[in-house]
């Protein structure tokens, strides 16, 4: 960020706020960026759970009210289903841009890049592996 103490008057073209609805490519782009709004919701949900846990007594009264009353609410379940779809959409788009953001070379002495499917396979394996580990651990200790 920079403080602009100048006298320049830049030309700002008028753009409608709904410009991204007119082209499906741009709509997909805004949905992709919009997944961050959903992940912020999940983040606050987790933080609320930790907060309720901290407030609980030895039998977890407040925490169980959070799980049964908040997570059990049909609106929150539907929002969580949307959040799941949005997280997976984010994962697909995020993994797709990874080879463009991080360049992996074949070896030290060449400028030849690794084919894009190598990081893709690794990232999808990481997603499946992490999901399996967390789900199995959660269901085993349930």
């Amino acid at each position: 960020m920079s403080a602009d103490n100048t006298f320049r008057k830049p030309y700002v073209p008028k753009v409608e706020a709904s410009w991204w609805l007119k082209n499906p490519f741009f709509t997909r782009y805004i949905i992709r960026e919009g997944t961050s709004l959903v992940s912020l919701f999940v983040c606050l949900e987790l933080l609320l759970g930790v907060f309720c846990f901290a407030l609980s007594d030895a039998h977890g009264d407040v925490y169980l009210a959070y799980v049964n009353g908040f997570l059990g609410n049909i609106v929150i379940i539907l929002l969580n289903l949307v959040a799941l779809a949005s997280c997976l959409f984010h994962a697909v788009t995020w993994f797709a841009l990874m080879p463009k953001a991080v360049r992996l070379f074949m070896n030290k002495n060449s400028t030849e890049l690794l084919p894009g499917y190598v990081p893709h396979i690794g990232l999808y394996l990481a997603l499946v592996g992490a999901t399996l580990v967390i789900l199995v651990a959660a269901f085993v200790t349930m």
Partner: protein
Amino acid sequence: MHSNRSDEPIYWLLFGAGGMAVGVVLPAIVILMIVAGFQDVGEASGMLNFHQVGAVLGNWLLSAVLFGVIMLTAWHACHRIYHTLHDLTIRVTKLHWFVFYGLAAAITFAAAALQFLIYCQLW
């Protein structure tokens, strides 16, 4: 002393790490919360029951991982929303910057403080 160097790489790094956390770890956590929503959860029965979550928050490594997921998700989301405001034809000001990065910092400090208090059983 004012530095000419940009602070952007720090936020970019948190954004990138957060993108990985959201893409790799968050789907499983959301699945657990959906499953818990369909069950009648008790003190020691059901998905995400009190003792199970207590075991996670009482383990320093698992609690640190959970803190990492919460923190990185917050920084990722706030950074991305802040930069998407331009595409929604909102001209960002310094106030927008403080609101969004302040929110991420607040979530970080709240999660760190709460999880530390739970771990040390101070609350």
